[in-house]
């Protein structure tokens, strides 16, 4: 009897161990998914390298950056291993690397994460290097340099300046004789959206990512996360979700079952089998992605860019660092890492390869230098930032506080519910408000 009991306990213990080890395995299986992308890049660089640089991005960026790193090796005989991931994988990878104090030397950083990484002491303060001149910032305008300032230090150089925008399929609008003018009001946009859906079947996609939420709240004068607690009451969000609810009911908004925006290449604006499953416009990423969208689009389709329609575009538009280059506090050789950073920002050789894929280069000298080298598409994306956004914009919101990624997920889920007709505008607003209270409320 006793031995039977012991056996049973043992059996349970073994079961437990088996399932915990499988829990561990699920971590590693995703690791293998990520490393497959980095391995391919390791192969192209030779054996052991002096520095490691990591970024997220698209196919165009991966190729160009790798090429620029190869060029760096050729010029300075310092080899740099490139590691690239998709957005989600990238942040999982960085979080675990940060925990193990093994972050890559040079990392691509985002506005929504920089504060969190600075708070935890994961990034190197670049101020001493800027002062010593090791990092040449003489051609970077004051306001662009200031984008990297957190708590009195400078932790990132904007790799490119850009703005949130509305991408649209110009081939579709041209066929209907519609002109998408910049700084369009939301009502004008809705009228056009209805017309396009009626005549072609294509629908608009401004719901899926929460980018529109930011523009809308800026235009309405509602600070989302400034005081960490979003707003006084859920009612303030209701009009936003009312717009979304109506857009689904009126049929001009693409429903979420056809929306996969995990990568530029799967965005329904460029990917799909028929107008009914595709979007004619999308709010997904910043204006520098125009090149990526254009190269992902089917042959013969022209993608163009305009401002996001709101009730007050001058208030809602803003210039933002498309992303930063930051140096990890874990780096063993800060001087070498700074030298690489300087190369990426100030070298004509490097930027003749990178060609502003990450946005209009922070250095005005480099921006002027490459303007003639870039494709017509990129010139449009540059012109959008300098001629359209810059003169009609307001300052950017402060960097996102810790916990924003969780709120972002809630915003996406709530948008999905609205899209499926599973929640009313009031319910959606309440859910977002509750999440804000949970994350930042007292």
């Amino acid at each position, binding site marked *: 009897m006793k031995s039977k009991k012991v056996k*049973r306990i043992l*059996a*349970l213990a073994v*079961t*437990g*161990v*088996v*399932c*915990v*080890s*499988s*829990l*561990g395995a*699920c*971590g590693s*299986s*995703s690791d*293998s*998914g990520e490393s*497959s992308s980095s391995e391919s890049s390791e192969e192209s660089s030779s054996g052991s390298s002096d520095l490691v640089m990591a970024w997220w991005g698209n196919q165009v960026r991966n190729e160009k950056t790798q090429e620029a790193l190869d060029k760096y090796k050729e010029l300075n005989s310092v080899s740099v291993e490139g590691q690239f991931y998709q957005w*989600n994988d990238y*942040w*999982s990878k960085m*979080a*675990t690397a*940060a*925990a193990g104090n093994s972050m890559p030397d040079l990392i691509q950083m985002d506005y929504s994460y920089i504060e*969190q*990484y600075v708070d*935890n002491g*994961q990034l190197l303060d670049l101020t001493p290097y800027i002062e010593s001149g090791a990092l040449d910032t003489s051609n970077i305008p004051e306001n662009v340099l200031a984008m990297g300032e957190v708590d009195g230090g400078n932790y990132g150089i904007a790799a490119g300046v850009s703005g949130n925008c509305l991408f649209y399929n110009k081939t579709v609008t041209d066929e209907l004789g519609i002109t998408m003018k910049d700084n369009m009001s939301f009502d004008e946009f809705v009228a056009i959206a209805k017309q396009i859906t009626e005549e072609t079947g294509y629908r608009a996609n401004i719901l899926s990512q929460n980018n529109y939420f930011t523009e809308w709240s800026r235009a309405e004068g509602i600070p989302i996360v400034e005081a960490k607690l979003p707003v006084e009451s859920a009612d303030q969000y209701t009009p936003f979700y009312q717009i979304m609810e109506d857009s689904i009911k009126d049929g001009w908004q693409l*429903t*979420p*079952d*056809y*929306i996969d925006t*995990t990568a530029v290449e799967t965005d329904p604006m460029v990917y*799909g*089998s*028929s107008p*009914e*499953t595709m979007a004619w416009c999308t709010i997904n990423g910043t204006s520098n992605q125009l090149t990526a969208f254009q190269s992902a689009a089917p042959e013969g389709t022209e993608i163009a860019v305009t401002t996001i329609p709101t009730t007050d575009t001058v208030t809602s538009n803003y210039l933002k660092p498309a992303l930063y280059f930051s140096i990890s506090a874990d780096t063993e050789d800060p001087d070498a890492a700074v030298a690489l950073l300087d190369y990426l920002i100030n070298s004509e050789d490097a930027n003749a390869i990178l060609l502003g894929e990450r946005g209009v280069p922070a250095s005005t000298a480099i921006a002027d230098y490459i303007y003639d080298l870039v494709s017509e598409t990129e010139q449009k994306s540059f012109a959008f930032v300098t001629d359209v956004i810059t003169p009609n914009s307001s300052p950017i919101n402060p960097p996102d506080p*810790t*916990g924003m*990624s*969780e709120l972002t*997920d809630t915003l996406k*889920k709530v948008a*999905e*519910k609205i899209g*499926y007709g*599973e929640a009313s505008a009031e319910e959606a607003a309440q859910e977002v408000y509750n999440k804000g209270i*949970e994350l930042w409320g007292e």
Partner: protein
Amino acid sequence: MHSDSKLYKFLNKEKSAGVIFCLPFIIGFIAFLIVPMGISLYYSFCDYDILSPPKFVGLDNYIKMFTGDEVFWRSFKATVYFALVSVPLRLVFALIVAMILVKPTKLTGFYRAAYYLPSIIGGSVAVAVLWKRMFAPDGVVNALLGTIGIDTNFAWLGSTKTAIWTLIILAVWQFGSSMLIFLSALKQIPKDLYEAAEVDGATKVTKFFKVTLPLLTPTIFFNLVMQMINGFLAFTQSLIITQGKPMDSTLFYAVYMYQQSFNYNSAGYASAMAWTMLLFIGLLTLILFKTKKFWVYDQE
């Protein structure tokens, strides 16, 4: 080494030799399983964001999980639904194929290998990506439906009703390992039992239900327990194919745990989730073992 030396004597004892040969496993087991498990148990009582040191918060994570987290319950329900539907389906499927393949023909070997293949590759990222493409609006599934006259752009992965079924079908497709176990069990059923049944005038159906099935119950039980555990820990399919969409209807427990840990940097909460799952699976296994005496035929 001198044969009288203490070390020599020690090494030649049967007991110490056994321990030494086991050491590589024991060390790995302790270093990579027991110690991390202990650490994760500690983290489950902490507020731990991976980047800064853990802060002890007692039972807060567990309290939040059971009282204040709707997504936790949604992911739990989705996982239970997935496991309870896909595991029995997979076992039935495995048994049917095993019954067919048990009769030796020239091609049996080939078919066994062919049907086992999905078990090996089915959990991989590549197959998950393939699956996603198959069920896309312009994927092969809709194309096939088109050839039989059903013209549709239906997004199988975009509907709360069908998305989880694409994952269930993927799981059922990986029936190979259960099938192999059934095959070997089928071969072990003594022929004289069937002969005796035939003498008594049993039909094929009666033979299956009165002879084959009862004698297979120990194997079914083993498969059920193992597959249930795997089912509750399903991860890759949900992460790659659906990312939990639409509306968390395919957000598996392990994926939500991963999100908490690596996307929201709440490793403490994720550890608490892992331990809750461990206890749940332990309990479920215990219950399954308790029911054993009611339906598992014991040959001894």
